[in-house]
């Protein structure tokens, strides 16, 4: 550990100890009479107002993806990375349309997971199972991305970098991961909710300082943009192609406008059907808290746009660019930039912010996936009479298993572009969109048409993503592929395939008058406010 800066290291460790204390202490926060209940462990008592929901959803949405993966893509390829900005702009109006309906119907019926709703709406256990499996699967690479982000910061700090032993090298990561796993197990959703206050304070602080201070060190925004424009237009001697694009091109193939738009739209549609984001949503006390948050959360997106620009700052700073090139890992662009530009104490604050910013969502994601497993696989298929206590215990263990599944993704998949981990999760979770979101409005789609549509989208998307190659990786190298002559986000083309199959089969099944299955929801329940529907004890979960 020869290159470790003592000041930076001390601050990061102090922050880590602080959030660990909060994580363990959170089990006492807003304490309920019976904590061994899924509404408590998994949804924090379903009593969060606008303020906490804002922090919690912000903690869900702005992750290592934002701080490490997006700037890394911008650094390596230029303008295409800004699809993430367009995506976070679109996500809110899209969610604004359907999320309050999901909140209301879930409140009335006591649904804990999106798959609970699907089961109630379509009366189909198979369809509900497909939701649960997809949610758990899609969450894992997303958590893996958080680990890659923590790893990037630790490696720039020089922690563990001097040894070649894989286990010793990743020991700090494993320790961080283990502590996270234990306090999630004990405190449930209360832990990330409480820690997200610390996280967001640190993040706002370092991002605002970074975007005002770093340009003054680099000769102003004019120089940064000018340098980037020249850099991406230059021909890379290795590939004989330009380094990247400075604005999306209007061609058919490459970093095009269409690729940009499909990546953004696909990610935006995917965001609010992720189980962990739905977990954060259902934890809100009032319908109005959801709507209000859709106009308050874009404040975070302004940050995202500024953070993406850190990629250009890293390009324009010769020292950072040389460090990244030497390490051969674009993920390190932002950590190296901070290390070079900030005094070591402030670098410590920024690094702590990124690490905590990865741990909070990892906790929420594993809780969301664990709830899916417990409610829609364990109780549904194995132990229908499970007590609330047993359900909570199962979720606690499932949250550990999901985290270790994520560790496998982090180790096995190439992380030249960690953003692909998130986009891979997106390809999968998008396949639940027709069932879940169309289901909030209409029962027109037939339950047995949605299953084959989902399956086709999953198979097509997985194979297409597997087949993408790059000079450094033979598989899983990209998230866009050429379809019908255009470069498109695979998640988007898979979703189109899924929807087309679902529509065609629905028409056939309806013509054949195949039974539609029971629907336990009523139209007015989709707009219910919490006031006229006192939170009922969910059947099967309820203590009553």
């Amino acid at each position, binding site marked *: 550990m020869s290159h470790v800066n003592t000041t930076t290291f001390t601050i990061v460790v102090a922050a880590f100890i602080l959030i660990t204390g909060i994580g363990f202490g959170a089990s006492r926060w807003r304490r309920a009479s019976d904590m061994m209940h899924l509404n408590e462990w998994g949804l924090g008592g379903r009593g969060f107002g606008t303020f906490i929901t804002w922090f919690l959803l912000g903690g869900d949405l702005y992750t290592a993806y934002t701080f490490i993966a997006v700037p890394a893509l911008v650094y390596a390829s230029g*303008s295409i990375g*800004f699809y993430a*900005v*367009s995506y*976070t*702009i*679109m996500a*809110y*109006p*899209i969610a*604004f*349309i359907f999320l309050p309906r999901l909140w209301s119907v879930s409140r*009335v*019926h*006591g649904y804990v997971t999106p798959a*609970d709703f699907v*089961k*109630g709406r379509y009366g189909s256990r198979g369809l509900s199972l497909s939701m649960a499996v997809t949610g758990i699967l899609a969450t894992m690479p997303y958590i893996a991305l958080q680990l890659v982000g923590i790893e990037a910061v630790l490696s720039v700090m020089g922690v563990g970098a001097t040894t070649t032993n894989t286990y010793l090298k990743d020991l700090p990561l494993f320790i961080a991961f283990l502590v996270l796993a234990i306090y999630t197990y004990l405190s449930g959703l209360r832990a990330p909710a409480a820690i997200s206050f610390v996280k967001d304070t640190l993040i706002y602080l370092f991002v605002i300082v970074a975007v005002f201070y770093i340009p003054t060190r680099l000769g*102003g*925004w*004019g120089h*940064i*943009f000018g340098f980037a*424009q020249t850099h991406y237009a230059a021909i890379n001697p290795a590939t004989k192609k330009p380094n990247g694009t*400075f*604005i*999306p091109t*209007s061609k058919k193939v490459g970093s095009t*406008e*269409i690729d*940009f*738009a499909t990546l*953004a*739209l696909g990610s935006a549609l995917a965001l609010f059907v992720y189980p962990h984001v739905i977990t954060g949503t259902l934890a809100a006390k009032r319908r109005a808290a959801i*709507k*209000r948050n*859709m*106009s*308050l959360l*874009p*404040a975070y*997106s*302004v940050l995202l*746009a*500024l953070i993406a*620009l850190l990629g250009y700052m890293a390009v324009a700073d010769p020292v950072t660019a040389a460090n990244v090139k030497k390490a051969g890992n674009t993920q390190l662009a932002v950590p190296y930039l901070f290390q070079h530009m900030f005094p070591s104490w402030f670098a410590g604050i920024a690094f702590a912010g990124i690490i905590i910013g990865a741990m909070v969502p990892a906790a929420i994601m594993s809780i969301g996936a664990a709830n899916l497993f417990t409610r829609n696989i364990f109780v549904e298929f194995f132990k229908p009479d499970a007590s609330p206590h047993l359900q909570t215990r199962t979720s606690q263990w499932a949250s550990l298993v999901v985290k270790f599944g994520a560790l496998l993704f982090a180790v096995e998949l190439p992380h030249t572009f960690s953003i692909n981990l998130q986009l891979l999760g997106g390809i999968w979770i998008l396949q639940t969109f027709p069932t879940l979101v169309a289901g909030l409005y209409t029962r027109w789609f037939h339950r047995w048409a949605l299953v084959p549509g989902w399956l086709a989208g999953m198979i097509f998307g997985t194979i297409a993503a597997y087949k993408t190659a790059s000079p450094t990786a033979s598989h899983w190298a990209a998230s866009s592929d050429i379809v019908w002559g255009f470069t498109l986000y695979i998640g988007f083309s898979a979703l189109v395939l899924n929807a087309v199959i679902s529509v065609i089969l629905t028409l056939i099944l309806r013509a054949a008058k195949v039974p539609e299955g029971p629907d*336990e929801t*009523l*139209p*007015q*329940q989709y707009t*219910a406010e919490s006031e*006229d*529907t*006192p939170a*009922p*004890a*969910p*059947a*099967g979960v309820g203590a009553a």
Partner: protein
Amino acid sequence: MAESPESPAATQAPPPVSPLASHPVRSLVIAVLVIATIAGTLIVPIYDSLTPRVGDFPFFYFYLLIFMPAVAIVLWIVTLLQKGLAK
């Protein structure tokens, strides 16, 4: 779900008159505003250009930065308009 515990308000109240039918203009405005916030960055050619530069920012980057607070404000206005719909 076994017995679905519905509140009296949810089950006994007659289906409300569609807010769409009683406030057509307001509903249209809401729809247009929400669609505009999505289309505004989805249709990339609208802003995919280096010029006009705003300060040091090429237009593409300026637009993405400024659209964000705009969406926040528009969605806030929509929330207010929807409150009126419920009456």
